[in-house]
């Protein structure tokens, strides 16, 4: 009887360990996560439009069809990146995701407060290496540090009505992300 109980307890404990391990490892092992899906259509360090979602095909699930979307798949291993996008008429946002699809930073046109959202993206080490001159401490220079060397910048422009789609696409087409 006791042997049976111990056996059950052992199985439960092991099961718990398997459960935790799979939950924690899944983000690293997933082959069809958002980063992998975007990698199939986006070369490194350039802005690429994402085709709008339709019932038959979508790059990712749960995409908002009211937005035009572009993406920059970045790699900071050779140095930091300069990013800029002109804001469209309705609503523009820029979201940053790590290699494992964690949204670590997002900014919208109103928070940026200008006609263009402009920023530097770098790793914590690259930021630490920045010379401490006036240029760096200038208040209007926005620096974003990425927790991972690779990741995604997702640029989204709202098209509140169908007629706004060309304007939103134009704004996104002018987005740039390039190594410095």
């Amino acid at each position: 009887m006791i042997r049976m109980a111990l056996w059950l307890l052992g199985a439960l404990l092991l099961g718990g360990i398997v459960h935790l391990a799979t939950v924690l490892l899944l983000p690293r092992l997933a082959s069809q996560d958002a980063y992998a899906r975007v990698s199939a259509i986006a070369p490194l360090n350039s802005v690429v439009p994402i085709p709008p979602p339709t019932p038959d095909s979508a790059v990712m699930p749960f995409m908002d069809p009211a937005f035009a979307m572009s993406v920059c798949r970045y790699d900071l291993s050779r140095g930091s990146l300069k990013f800029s996008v002109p804001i469209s008429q309705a609503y523009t946002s820029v979201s940053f995701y790590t290699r494992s699809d964690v949204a670590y930073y997002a900014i919208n046109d109103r928070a940026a407060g200008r006609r263009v959202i402009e920023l530097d993206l770098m790793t914590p080490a690259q930021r630490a290496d920045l010379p401490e001159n006036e240029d760096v401490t200038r208040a209007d220079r926005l620096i974003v540090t990425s927790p991972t060397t690779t990741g995604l910048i997702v640029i989204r422009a709202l098209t509140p009505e169908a007629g706004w789609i060309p304007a939103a696409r134009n704004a996104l087409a002018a987005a740039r992300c390039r190594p410095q």
Partner: protein
Amino acid sequence: MLALAVAAVIGLGTTWMALTRGTAYGGVTIGAWTAWPKNGTAGIDPYARAMVARTGELPVGSGDGVAFYARTDNSGEGLDGRCDVLVSGITPQARFWTLTLYDPEGHLVANSVQRQGFTSQEIVRKSDGSFDVIVGPRVRPGNWLPTGGIEKYQLVLRLYDTPIGMATRGGTEAPMPSINRVSCQ
């Protein structure tokens, strides 16, 4: 040996259940709607991370907006695309919002008029600023969101540039539209 097999079944089974049933922590529930504002930050919990990796979606960043999901109506009944459902009321404060219909896997649903949702700008409101959306399989006057007749669907209400977020607790302070079944075939 048998113990190992049982352990593997328990472990993988509970992982699968946790990731497919949507039991992430830190949800903010208002009526039939639930949002996970933390999923749009670096503080996302391991279960939500695993879920996001499995589905392949990108969560809405918290500096961008917040997404509320509804799989049931206000009485807890699952949303059925063969029924007429009334989504009615007002939304919390936001610069823009979008209401979108997806199948359970997050795909858009095909229909005769190619409408997958509404934005705050195109929706027709009543004189007091509130709105009614009829979600159903057959053409309706007014704001009609077609279901394509699929059995199960979910609604996602995304608020952009909104003060609603992590500080918000579930309850009455943030008004969300009610979801009620009108009739069924």
